């Protein structure tokens, strides 16, 4: 389809392992966002890209989390030395340049990460 695509949909890993989550935004959307949703909570902002650069990474919880968007389209969220507390659904969203300021984002279905 033409929506935001996230892979994998489910990822189970062991504590201490490295994980990559991929997001393919809607074609032509220059803004891309990563959010994290824990059980019973609303989505929590992690990082926002405008083009290739991270415009705001203030939501990344610590230096184990890193995200890239090298060509201004696909983005990868990388988590090093995973901990059980990292278990959550990681949501990616995109928006056309300009509409992101009004909060209208297009979300993917999310990647559910479980750290054992």
């Amino acid at each position, binding site marked *: 389809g033409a929506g935001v695509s996230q892979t994998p949909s489910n990822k189970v890993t062991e504590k201490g392992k490295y994980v990559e989550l991929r997001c393919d935004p809607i074609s032509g959307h220059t803004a891309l966002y990563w959010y994290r949703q824990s059980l019973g909570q609303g989505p929590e902002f992690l990082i*926002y890209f405008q083009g290739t650069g991270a415009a705001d990474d203030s939501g990344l919880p610590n230096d184990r989390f890193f995200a890239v968007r090298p060509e201004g389209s696909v983005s990868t969220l990388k988590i090093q030395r995973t901990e059980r507390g990292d278990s959550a659904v990681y949501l990616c969203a995109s928006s056309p340049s300009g509409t992101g*300021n009004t*909060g209208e984002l297009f979300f993917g279905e999310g990647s559910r990460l479980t750290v054992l």
Partner: protein
Amino acid sequence: DQQVKQNSPSLSVQEGRISILNCDYTNSMFDYFLWYKKYPAEGPTFLISISSIKDKNEDGRFTVFLNKSAKHLSLHIVPSQPGDSAVYFCAAVPSSNTGKLIFGQGTTLQVKP
């Protein structure tokens, strides 16, 4: 510090009646407020928004009301339909305009046939 709060985790209404979902916020420096709807195993989808300079916005069966003095936002769904059963998130856009949305915890709405 939860800047956007949805104090009711769940709400159940009868089909055809009004659903009212509530949201409170603590920061006056928000430009827009939005409601997102989420079905299980899907991402949130945008439903309706309101600018901080307005007090009402209507779109079909959905109306959002903003009371700035009370720092309170509500979503009215009339008439409610079983397909409206979902989790509803209130969200706010800070004036700094970084694309960062601040979400509430969500309210699960069940509309009974």
